[in-house]
C-alpha cells in the first residue's frame, strides 16, 4: 500500500462560525462560541454555558435551501451545510464523476427531535415523521442525498471519536482503491439527552472551560458539523487540483478500562498517538503542533497530558485545545479539529488554548496561550477520545 490520501476540501459550521472563513476569523480573534444557552430548549438555560451554532432551525433550513416541513433534524441541517461547503471547497462540480463516499460520525443522531416529540410519538399519531429521523443513519443518508453521494455511505458511532474514525475508514477505503474520494467527518447538535447525561457525570463547567489548567472544572458542550474531502493521489493528479494537506497517519486503540473514564497514565491515548506516528513514518520531534482532545475535565487532561509526555518527553510540541473556542462538539469534534488542523497548516498559525491561567502541577508543559503567526506548521497531530475507551489520533501534514 503506497497510495497517499489528500485533503482537498474542508467545510465547517460550529459556535464560532457558519463556514471556514468565519471559523478562521474567530480563531484568529480569540473569539469563543461558548455562551449562555439560546436555542436548546432546556431547564439548564442560564446555568450551563455551551457553544451553540448561532442559528435557529428556521434559519438553518433557509441556509441549506431545503423545503420547510420536511423532517430534517438540527444535526442533519448543520451536516448538510458543512458537507456542501467541503464539496465546494474541493472544487467538485460533478460529484458522480468519481467513486465518492460519505462517512459521517454521530452519536445522538436525531435525538433533538425524538426528545422533543417523544410523548407524542408514544401516545399519539402526531409528528410521527420523526420516528424515522431518530437513528444515526438518517442524517448521513439525508446529507448524502443533498450532496449527491451514491457510491458508499456509512456512519461511525464511537461517541467523541466518531468523526476521527470516519476519516480513518475513508482513508483506508481510498488506499485500497475502493473509492476515489470520501467526504468524512461528523455532526452533532446539542440535545437535552446528552447535556443531562454529561451533567450527571458532573463534568460540565459552569464557566468557560479551561483545558490543561490546574483549576479546570470540566467541559463545555458544543454543537457543530465538519467534513474534509479525502482524495486519492490519482484523483488529485488527474484534476490537478490544489491539495490542502495530506492525511499521513492515523491510530485507533481501545483503552479497555472504563466506559467513561481514562487511565491516569493515558494508556489508550498513548497507543493511538504512537500508532499514528508509526503509520506516518514521522519521528515525534517532527510534529509541530498537537491539537489536543483537551476537554477540560480533570480526568482527560491529566491522562492525555501524561500520554503526550510519555511519547514526546517533557519538551513536547506546541499544544492547544481549541475546545475552548468550539466547546466539545462530541461526535463532530474530530471533524471540527481536523478542519482547524488543516487551517493551521494552510496559514502557518497555531491557535491558542483560551482561558488558561495556571499550569497543571502534574504536567511539565503549558499549552499555547497566544495566537502564533508565521510559525512552521508542517505536521499536526489531532486527538479524539471517546466513551468506551475509543481513542483515535490523526496526523495532517503539509503537502
Amino acid at each position: 500500500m503506497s497510495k497517499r490520501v489528500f485533503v482537498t476540501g474542508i467545510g465547517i459550521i460550529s459556535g464560532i462560525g457558519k463556514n471556514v472563513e468565519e471559523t478562521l476569523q474567530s480563531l484568529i480573534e480569540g473569539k469563543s462560541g461558548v455562551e449562555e444557552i439560546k436555542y436548546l430548549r432546556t431547564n439548564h438555560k442560564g446555568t450551563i454555558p455551551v457553544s451553540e451554532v448561532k442559528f435557529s432551525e428556521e434559519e438553518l433550513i433557509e441556509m441549506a435551501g431545503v423545503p420547510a416541513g420536511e423532517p430534517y433534524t438540527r444535526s442533519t441541517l448543520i451536516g448538510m451545510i458543512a458537507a456542501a461547503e467541503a464539496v465546494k471547497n474541493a472544487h467538485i462540480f460533478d460529484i458522480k464523476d468519481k467513486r465518492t463516499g460519505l462517512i459521517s460520525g454521530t452519536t445522538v443522531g436525531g435525538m433533538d427531535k425524538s426528545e422533543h416529540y417523544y410523548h407524542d410519538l408514544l401516545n399519539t399519531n402526531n409528528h410521527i415523521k420523526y420516528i424515522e429521523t431518530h437513528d444515526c443513519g438518517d442524517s448521513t443518508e439525508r446529507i448524502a442525498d443533498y450532496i449527491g453521494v451514491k457510491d458508499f455511505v456509512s456512519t461511525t458511532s464511537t461517541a467523541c471519536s466518531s468523526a476521527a474514525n470516519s476519516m480513518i475508514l475513508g482513508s483506508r477505503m481510498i488506499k485500497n482503491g475502493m473509492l476515489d474520494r470520501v467526504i468524512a467527518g461528523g455532526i452533532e447538535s446539542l440535545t437535552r439527552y446528552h447535556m443531562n447525561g454529561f451533567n450527571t457525570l458532573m463534568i460540565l463547567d459552569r464557566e468557560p472551560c479551561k483545558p490543561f489548567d490546574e483549576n479546570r472544572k470540566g467541559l463545555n458542550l458544543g454543537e457543530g458539523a465538519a467534513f474534509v474531502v479525502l482524495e486519492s493521489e490519482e484523483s488529485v493528479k488527474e484534476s490537478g487540483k490544489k491539495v490542502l494537506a495530506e492525511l499521513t497517519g492515523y491510530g485507533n486503540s481501545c483503552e479497555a478500562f472504563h466506559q467513561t473514564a481514562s487511565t491516569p497514565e493515558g494508556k489508550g491515548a498513548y497507543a493511538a498517538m504512537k500508532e499514528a506516528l508509526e503509520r506516518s513514518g514521522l519521528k515525534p520531534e517532527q510534529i509541530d503542533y498537537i491539537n489536543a482532545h483537551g476537554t477540560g475535565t480533570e480526568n482527560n487532561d491529566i491522562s492525555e497530558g501524561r500520554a503526550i509526555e510519555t511519547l514526546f518527553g517533557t519538551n513536547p510540541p506546541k499544544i492547544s485545545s481549541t475546545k475552548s473556542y468550539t466547546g466539545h462538539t462530541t461526535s463532530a469534534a474530530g471533524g471540527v479539529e481536523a478542519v482547524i488542523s488543516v487551517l493551521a497548516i494552510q496559514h502557518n498559525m497555531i491557535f491558542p488554548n483560551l482561558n488558561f491561567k495556571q499550569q497543571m502541577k502534574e504536567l511539565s508543559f503549558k499549552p499555547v496561550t497566544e495566537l502564533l503567526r508565521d510559525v512552521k506548521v508542517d505536521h499536526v497531530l489531532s486527538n479524539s477520545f471517546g466513551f468506551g475507551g475509543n481513542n483515535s489520533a490523526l496526523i495532517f501534514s503539509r503537502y
Partner: protein
Amino acid sequence: MEVYIQGIGNISPQNTSDNSTFLNEPLNHEAGYLLCVEPNYKDYINPIQLRRMSKLIKMGITASKMCLQEAGIENPGAIITGTGLGLVGDTEKFLNQVLDYNEEFLTPTAFIQSTHNTISGQVAIALQCYNYNNTYSHRGFSFESALLDGMLLIHNKDAENVLVGGFDEITPEHYSIVKKTRWVKKENINSLELLNHKTQGSIVGEGVAFFSLAGERNDKTYARIKNIKTIYKPQSNEEVAEKIDLFLKENGLSKEDIDLVVLGLNGNTETDHYYNYLSDNYFNTNYAYFKHLSGDFHTAGTFGLWFAAMAVKHQMVPQIARYRKENFIEKPIRNVLVYNHFRNVDHSIFLLTQ
C-alpha cells in the same frame, strides 16, 4: 478481501446458540415482535457484573464469548460492531428520566450504557483487548460496515483475526412507536407464516451475533467470505440484478455458480419485489429466506450471514427456510449469495464460498 469465518456466536429468536444443530426445532412467535431466546448468561459472565448489565449488554458479551470460544481465540486483533438503534432499553430509560423528572435528579448509569459503542467497549474490557475498536450505526449498513472494516483490516495485515458483530434489540415501548410506521405489520401474525400475509410492513425482530474472522483457513472454518458489497438506494429491480451480475464477475463467478441464494424476504408486499425479481428473472437455483425466523431489524444481515455459513458447514438447507420449495434440488453447497435490503434503501450482498 477474502476472510474465513472461524467461529460464530448467534443469539436470536431461534435456538441458535449451539452451532452443532441447524434450526432443527424452529420456534414460532405469535407476538407482534420476536424476542431472542436468551442463553444462560452465568456460563459466560460473573454474577456480580451480570446484575449491572442491561439485556443487550449481556447478550453482546455472551455472544462474543461464544464466538471466540468456538474460534479458539483469546484476544482478537480488533473488535468492530454495528447497530441500527444501539441500546434501546437504556436510551428509553434515560430519556424517560430526563422528560419525567424535568432534567433533575438523574443518575448516569443508563446514559453511560446508551452510547452505541458500549458493547464494543464492554467486550474489549471483558477481554482486556487494547486493539482497534470501532462501531458503526447506519441502518441496513451497520453490520455490513463493520464487516467491511474487519475484512479490510485482515486484507491489509493490520490484524490477523477480527471479532465482528451486529446487535439490535426491540422493547415494548419502541415497538409501540415503530408500529406507527409503514414498515411494521398492523396485524399480529404467526411468525413462521410470514410470507402468507400479503400486507404492508414486516415483523420486528432482534438479535446479536458475533463472527470471528481470519485470513487463513483452519479446521474450524465454516466458510470463506469472498466479498461483500453495499448498494445505496438502487432505482430498480434491474439495477440490483445488474450490480449483482457485475459483483459476481468481479469475483470470478457467474450466476450459474451460485448454489444457494439467501434472500432477506420480509413479507412486505411493497418491497419484496427486489427479491422476487432475482428469483424469477435472474437466478435459477435454490433459495432460502430467514426473516420469518429472525424478524426484521437493522442488523438482520447477521442472521443471514450466520445462515449462509451454517448452510455451507452443514451442507444442508433446513426445510423451514427453503423458498420456492417445489423447485428445490439437493446439491452440494459451494457458493452462497446473501442478498438483503433494509427498507428499500440499504441493499447488501455477501458472497460466501466453501
